């Protein structure tokens, strides 16, 4: 046996080695199995307490105006709601499709829905899949509308607050919204129609969120 093996050419020895590896592969198990990630619950809990996993709507508005492009903005709502209104530069990935999405693990991902609940669920899904930079847009679209699209005049506000409001008025106009100068206009707010979604093609210079990264040869 030993003599037979030593008489073989290197090519044949390598072929036998390859065949053995192939044969062993039959029982070696699923290659996708080894990649599941253990959830570090302590780390998750700490990032929630410190609010380090949240992005404020005003910060996001600032990023969009400054045309920052180092993050992916993900709208977790259904496609119908997405086509009605969404934040400029966002891509629509309904929460059920999130596990199959093409988001990369090394990307900074900002998630939002109407409120925080779905975004928090999605945050956990992605964290448990080993995504590193996942953030929640604090308050979701509800707070986005309230603070960015239709900000209200501060009642008896200090000078600083009023200056802040003046700035927000411009931001609201930028995103196609309108500041509410009359502080009692909560009912009117409901009637104001949301800006149309084609906003992002007219006002924002950044290309639309879905950047298809092409790879391969």
């Amino acid at each position: 046996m030993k003599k037979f093996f030593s008489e073989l050419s290197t090519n044949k020895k390598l072929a036998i080695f390859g065949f053995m590896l192939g044969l062993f592969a039959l029982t070696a198990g699923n290659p996708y199995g080894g990649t599941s990630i253990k959830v570090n619950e302590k780390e998750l809990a700490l990032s929630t307490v410190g609010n380090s996993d949240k992005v404020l709507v005003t910060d996001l508005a600032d990023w969009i105006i400054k045309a920052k492009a180092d993050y992916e903005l993900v709208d977790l709502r259904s496609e119908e709601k997405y086509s009605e209104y969404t934040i400029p530069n966002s891509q629509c990935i309904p929460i059920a499709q999130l596990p199959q999405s093409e988001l990369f693990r090394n990307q900074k991902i900002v998630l939002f829905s109407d409120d925080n609940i779905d975004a928090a669920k999605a945050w956990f899904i992605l964290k448990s899949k080993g995504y590193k930079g996942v953030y929640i847009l604090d308050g979701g679209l509800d707070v986005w509308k309230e603070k960015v699209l239709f900000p209200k005049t501060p009642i008896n506000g200090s000078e600083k607050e009023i200056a802040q409001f003046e700035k927000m008025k411009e931001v609201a106009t930028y995103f196609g919204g309108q500041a509410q100068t009359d502080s009692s206009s909560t009912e009117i707010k409901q009637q104001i129609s949301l800006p149309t979604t084609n906003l992002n093609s007219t006002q924002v210079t950044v290309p639309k969120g879905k950047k298809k990264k092409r790879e391969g040869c």
Partner: protein
Amino acid sequence: MNAPFYKFNLFGFDVSLIIAFAIGIGFGFMLERGGFGSARILAAQFYLGNMRVLKVMFTAIVTAMLGIFYLSVIGYLDLSLIYVSNTYILPQVLGGLILGVGFVIGGYCPGTSMVAFSTGKIDGLVYVLGVAFGIFVFGEMFPMLEGFFNSTDLGKQTLPSFLGLSYGLVVFLVVVMAIGAFIAAEWSEKKFADRNPEKSI
């Protein structure tokens, strides 16, 4: 640190280009050492007299497949992060035929034409210019071709998912297929030895 390194952010985009350059140089060097800088050896593949291309390619496939499989099984490599391009069945069949015809006529594929050119072969240079011209024409015509280019999209297909077989079984079958191909290639090289350009060089 787990693989793939780039997707786990071990290095940035700039460094990835340098690494790609180094890998490209290594790949070209290996192709040249394998004899792939000669159009006659490459074209002899189609006349069954010299099966070097088939042997090298199948060896590369089996080596990469076994490496990826076992590194994933032990949990070192995250297989779900390996890029799989979509399968567009009709455009890819047509593209494969065009590449094959060009391969028989010109004696090179795009990669080996670069290898031939870098070793100073004039036909390699002509081929590289032809590749560049083809890319230019394709780019200019792309709006007309785009519909066909994106047609018959089957999504991200792998052999295990397409055939419904376990990953390990597919690995085994490919290894068996490769060994069968090696045996057939050796036989064919003996049978059509008179067509082997290496004998006449």
